[in-house]
């Protein structure tokens, strides 16, 4: 069963569509990386899923039921923009309120469990307003995890996290996914997303540009030959004539040749032009590069 099924969803503010005819499917247990430029409609879609704003049209179904269904809603954990905490309350008291809202029986135990999970058990007595940005993000994640939800909707959860925080986050999300929890996560830090996501949805202008699994993305990501020579300018020129798509990294001086074999490129350069290759490897473009290419193609 799919955890989220969205059909023809739209949200209009005045004359402008924030989300326009969006179709999206998130399978149960997936970590769904939700990617898009600023203003592409990611946060709006997440708010629509959580019922915080009303759609102008279309349907949202969670586990086959309408997203406004009370039973369905109680199974959703959310971190959108910032954790909704009272600044003058301690972390513990803020969590107690949410635990009571969720009707959790063993409140104290559950709060301790989630705070331990995000390595924030030592900060339970801190006032929320005195917590750092990274701490607030972790607390927000702990909030979302209260009551062991079956669906987590996380909007930019890794913003402000340090390296250790990001690692912890990865561990938590992959662990939850392994247990069947579905995670919808939006982020601009694509390198981190690439490490955990099992599915991707790429959004542009309020519409889903592409939806695919990590395997499909992997297959879709072109390989390239990365090489270095002593005569970068000339090598680039001749390779561009022979292979079409050639790019140069301005900082490292690395030349990337798409749609070619490493050995063939090296032989071509040295055999025909006497340009020796000093470094040679084959690689795949990253999610970030794939995304940038996709956006560029769209604009063109």
């Amino acid at each position, binding site marked *: 069963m799919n955890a989220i099924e969205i059909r023809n969803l739209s949200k209009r503010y005045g004359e402008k569509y924030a989300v326009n005819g969006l179709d999206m499917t998130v399978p149960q247990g997936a970590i769904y990386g939700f990617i898009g430029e600023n203003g592409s409609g990611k946060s709006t879609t997440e708010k629509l899923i959580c019922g915080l704003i*009303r759609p102008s049209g279309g349907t949202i179904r969670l586990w086959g039921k309408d997203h406004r269904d009370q039973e369905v809603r109680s199974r959703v954990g959310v971190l959108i*923009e910032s954790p909704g905490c*009272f600044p003058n309350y301690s972390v513990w008291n803020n969590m107690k309120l949410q635990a009571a809202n969720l009707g959790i029986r063993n409140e104290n135990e559950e709060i301790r469990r989630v705070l331990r999970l995000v390595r924030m058990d030592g900060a339970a007595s801190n006032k929320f307003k005195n917590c750092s940005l990274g701490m607030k993000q972790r607390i927000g994640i702990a909030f979302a995890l209260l009551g062991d939800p079956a669906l987590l909707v996380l909007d930019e959860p890794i913003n402000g996290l340090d390296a250790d925080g990001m690692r912890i986050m990865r561990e938590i999300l992959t662990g939850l996914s392994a247990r069947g929890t579905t995670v919808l996560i939006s982020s601009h830090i694509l390198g981190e997303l690439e490490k955990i996501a099992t599915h991707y949805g790429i959004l542009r202008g309020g519409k889903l540009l592409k939806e695919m699994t990590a395997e499909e993305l992997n297959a879709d990501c072109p390989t390239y030959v990365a090489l270095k020579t002593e005569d970068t300018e000339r090598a680039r020129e001749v390779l561009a004539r022979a292979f079409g798509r050639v790019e140069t990294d301005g900082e490292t001086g690395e030349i990337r040749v798409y749609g070619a074999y490493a050995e063939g490129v090296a032989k071509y350069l040295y055999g025909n032009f006497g340009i020796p290759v000093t470094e040679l490897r084959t690689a795949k473009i990253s999610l970030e590069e794939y995304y940038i290419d996709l956006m560029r193609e769209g604009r063109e």
Partner: protein
Amino acid sequence: MKTFAKRLKTMLKVDARRMFTMPAVWIMFGISLALPVLILVMTSFVGVAEAGEGAVAFTNVWQAIGSAGGMSMDLTGMCNINLLYFLAAIFTCLFVGEDFRSGYVKNLFTVRSRKIDYVLSKTIVLFAAACGMFLCYFAGAMIGGGIAGLSFDTAEVGASAGGIALCMISKIFFAPVFVSIALTLATVGKQRLWLSVLGTLAAGMLLFTMIPMMTPLNAGAFHVVLCVLGGPLFATGLGAVSCVILNKTSLV
């Protein structure tokens, strides 16, 4: 599936816990207690001769609670317990506004879709806070009257002890009217606290002249029934409006 009663119970628990851990509620209780003491003591110290006949009129402690016949436009008519309706309404705006400003409503309405639980629970706890304020004011009036040496004779102000008790009950049960107006305006204003406070004050001004008629010092059963039934009924009606506003508008 949780029943309505269970849902309301947990919501009330949360709201009560929140309200009584909020410094603002204790400040409001403090103001309610101190206000009549200050008014009664200070006006009696100034004296009639210096301030003029119209300005100083507290000769009896029960004037701080109300008047027997309609609203008078002198100091006793303006500076009495009826000011608390404004205080209760402002506290309502603060309490509800903080839910929106902190983002707490995001957490709440993601896991709870029924807005009626929220509106009902808020109305009940804020009514409880208003009750507390009225009782504090009453206590403050007694203390202030005692310090200022004012008369406690009920007959002097055309009332009886029973009438004053019924007057207090009427005043307390009239509070849901102001609470629900403030709650509705706070759901409209959301993060914009200034908007809900200004709206509430404006609405309060319109209703202010009605209060002495609904809750006179010599109140009878009619006034009590009117307020005990009318207050909650009015709150129910406006509560329904608040629910519609919450359902039809964006919460963030």
